[in-house]
């Protein structure tokens, strides 16, 4: 049962092979038995899951079941859930229970999904390794000495360890694609504005985007069918028609043009990763695609621009955590300044504090033009690079990450090395484009991810391209040892 994809589970439920309650109970039992190895969940919501499963079974009996009814998933602990703690993996919100659901959570509820629990992540989604979580790091099921990536590391680990058939993630600079790559699963960051941000705790508002993390492209399409759509509560969500994202999965790839940016294959790229990605590209050629070298000349500027814009927005977004109305408050504050300093100093971890300081500095009087404004100019250049290339090719491909999963602690004392892990993913968030990571090989027993980038709102095309690859290969079916 744990090997089944969402699509397979959906037909199992439909055929009456098992009930949603049986399925849900099995997953809950497995989480309680196994998750101590991976620490992929912060909160497991047994009661809610079982009552949702029961309702789903009743709906099916009543003939009102939809395609997602009764399917269990996990929610990244950044999506607010009415009545269930939403911690963002921070001490700051360890006691926070939202009185509302994120739109994404509402949509899964409406679709009849079952929530197994809330997954681990980097604190406030700031990190590429899951090591900044207040609840301890999540571990990579392929090698528990390694990180699962981040920030949606708990979601990736849970799906890879078969502790959830699929999970939600959010991606501000690679936080869906990078952990998907490191854990050997399929992750999709939709076009900015495709999925509502309401109730998704903000890191960097102009970059954050929720999306699916699943075993297959088909499952990601099923997830996105639920998640996508304009939301009047999010002014930046787009009034864009929502297609059936599974509709084009079967289209053949004959005539597809793939752009390979030379900047995505630098000299210091891990040779093993380069090889796996090149093999994947050959597979696409075998499927009828043509390949073209292209250039994204401003790629090198993406990380510096991102590390101005994202911290700048974060420094402002995280100002609301002040110990006044909710969340962590220091003991016995002597005055207002003490309340602020200690509540924030004690409630936020070091990486969050680092980014708040960087962002505050970048926005300071006298530095705004040199940093924030300049970064926004670079952002436009980066976007233009992609627009130019996507005028010539259907999709852009390259490695999702420069390295496979690294060891816990390996980069945690070197923020710059950690930031460089996102070199191939970050530019996409600056441009607002959709991108996927699909498993395309392994090196030393660790998965390698292929990144596929498409044009604005071309998620259908991306899913089609990924699905056809998964029909031809079985990297996505690989399971870590012992699972």
């Amino acid at each position, binding site marked *: 049962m744990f090997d089944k994809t969402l699509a397979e589970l959906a037909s199992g439920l439909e055929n009456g092979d098992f009930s949603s309650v049986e399925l849900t109970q099995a997953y809950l039992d497995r989480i309680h038995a196994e998750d101590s190895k991976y620490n992929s969940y912060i909160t497991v919501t047994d009661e809610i899951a079982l009552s949702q499963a029961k309702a789903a079974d009743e709906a099916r009996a009543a003939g009102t079941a939809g395609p997602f009814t009764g399917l269990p998933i996990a929610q990244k602990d950044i*999506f*607010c859930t009415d009545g269930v703690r*939403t911690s*963002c993996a921070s001490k700051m*919100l360890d006691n*926070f229970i*939202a*009185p*509302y659901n*994120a739109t994404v959570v509402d949509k899964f509820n409406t679709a009849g999904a079952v929530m197994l629990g809330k997954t681990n992540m980097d604190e406030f989604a700031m990190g590429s390794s899951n090591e900044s979580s207040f609840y301890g790091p999540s571990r990579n099921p392929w090698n528990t000495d390694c990180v699962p990536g981040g920030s949606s590391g708990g979601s990736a680990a849970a799906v890879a360890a078969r502790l959830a058939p699929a999970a939600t993630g959010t991606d501000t600079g690679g936080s869906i694609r990078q952990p998907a790559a490191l854990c050997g699963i399929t992750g999709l960051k939709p076009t900015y504005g495709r999925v509502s*941000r*309401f*109730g*998704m*705790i*903000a890191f*960097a*508002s*102009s970059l954050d985007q929720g999306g699916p993390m699943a075993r297959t492209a088909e499952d990601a399409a099923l997830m996105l069918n639920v998640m996508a759509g304009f939301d*009047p*509560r*999010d*002014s*930046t969500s787009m009034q864009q028609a929502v297609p059936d994202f599974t509709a084009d999965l079967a289209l053949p790839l004959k005539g597809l043009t793939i752009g390979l940016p030379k900047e995505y294959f630098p000299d210091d790229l891990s040779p093993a990763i380069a090889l796996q990605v090149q093999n994947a590209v050959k597979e696409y050629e075998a499927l009828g695609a043509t390949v073209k070298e292209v250039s994204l000349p401003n790629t090198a500027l993406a990380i510096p621009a991102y590390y101005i814009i994202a911290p*700048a*927005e974060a*420094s*402002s977004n*995280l*100002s*609301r*955590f*002040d110990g*006044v*109305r*909710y969340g962590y408050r220091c003991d016995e504050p002597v005055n*207002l300044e003490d309340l*602020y300093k200690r509540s924030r100093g004690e409630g936020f971890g070091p990486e969050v504090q680092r980014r708040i300081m960087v962002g*505050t500095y970048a*926005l*300071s*009087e006298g530095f*705004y033009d040199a940093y*924030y404004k300049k970064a926004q100019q670079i952002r436009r250049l980066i976007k233009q690079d992609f627009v130019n290339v996507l005028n010539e090719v259907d999709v852009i491909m390259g490695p999702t990450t420069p390295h496979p999963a690294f060891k816990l602690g390996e980069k945690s004392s070197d923020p710059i090395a950690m930031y460089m892990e996102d070199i191939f993913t970050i530019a996409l968030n600056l441009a607002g484009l959709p991108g996927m990571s699909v498993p395309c090989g392994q090196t030393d027993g660790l998965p390698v991810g292929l990144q596929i980038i498409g044009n604005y709102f071309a998620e259908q095309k991306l899913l089609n391209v990924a699905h056809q690859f998964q029909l031809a290969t079985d990297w996505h079916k690989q399971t870590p040892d012992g699972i």
Partner: protein
Amino acid sequence: MQWEAVIGLEIHAQLSTKSKIFSGASTAFGAEPNTQACAVDLALPGTLPVFNEEALRNAVKFGLAIDAEIGRTSVFDRKNYFYPDLPKGYQTSQLFHPIVGIGHVDITQDDGTTKRVGVTRAHLEEDAGKSLHDEFPGMTGIDLNRAGTPLLEIVSEPDIRSAKEAVAYARNIHSLVTSLGICDGNMAEGSFRCDCNVSIRPKGQEEFGTRTETKNINSFRFIERAIIGEIERQIDVIEDGGRIVQETRLYDANKNETRSMRSKEEANDYRYFPCPDLLPIVIDEEYIEAVRATLPELPDARKARFIEQHGLSSYDAMVLSADRNLAEYFETVATACTDAKLSANWVMGELSKLLNQNDTAITDSPVSADQLGGLLVRIKDDTISGKIAKQVFEVMWSDGGSADEIIDAKGLKQVTDTGAIEGIVDDVIANADKQVAQYQAAEPDKRGKMLGFFMGQVMKASGGKANPGAVTSILKQKLDALCD
């Protein structure tokens, strides 16, 4: 040394939208603390702002009324600072691209001439909540009902040169926003408040002096006093060899003085940047023209019409046109009694006197325009005298009722019967030998002035009901007969 003051005002007008600028919570004043603050207003994590387009329409109306450039693309920025009544840790405002650009208003000065005052900009922003210090000893209470209330901040050019001009400008803006119906103008409730930037310079000098900003003044009288006090303070400091420090000051109405709140050195670096949660507001010509079509008559146009149509003096027309509600009241009265001048006198006189004494807004007047109109009709048709009318008006104010009901109930109908008046006049003359003798002794052209005593006696004897016109002519006739 002759000093000249340079003054600029920043006025915060609370826009009278039903819900807040970025949330669906109500903006009504006076609710229990924190009952009108939703998850967005409390800045709970994950919540997002959604712009209330009614606030945009209001701002555009104001821009059109001051003949300003309307920002085709305006952008919300975040002004970042920590304060307990600022839940998000930033105020959403418009720094770089405001909705209303450069415009102007014309103020009437004491000598009757007009002066043009530039408006630099007007931008939309959200109000903060309130910190309550008195109710909780040793602690601070936070009421977030006001957080997120839409404000239009109207910034003038430093074109103002005296406290009087500042008040005239503030009154003009007040009159505009209330006439447009975009702000209730209630200063006591904080719907209209003013920050005054004041500096002084030697007369004739081009360069500005260092300015101070006195914040949150909520009455016209206080604006005037605060500015006068601040100008005097600055002159004293400079003439004593000191220098003015750029700082924020508070006006203390009880002590009638301003005092320092914080200096520029302690001031926040607000780290403004465009709010990534809100899209730029893009509006086109069509939208602007549609808003223009909904503009009501504005005070200047109304003043001109009052002079033209009702034959009012420039002064009366200005007073009555400034406030839309007052103007409407006046016109209702004038229509009812068909005498604009009489109506103007009563509205600006008796009515305004009682409104001021009771601190009552025209919209809450216990005497309606129709009631007052009915009263003035009875003056016009000689049913009662103007003096009796004042009595009727006071009854109307305190107990209600129409003019006719009160006149009947109190028996105040005027005596116009000549026979009855003649009888009273004869009695008065018979009992005033001394005054009659003086009258007889007076030069004929001085006698008119001496009628007053007899008038008073007759009116007193008639209980004020005798028709004054009839009394005058009968008195004159009878007294003059005694002189021949």
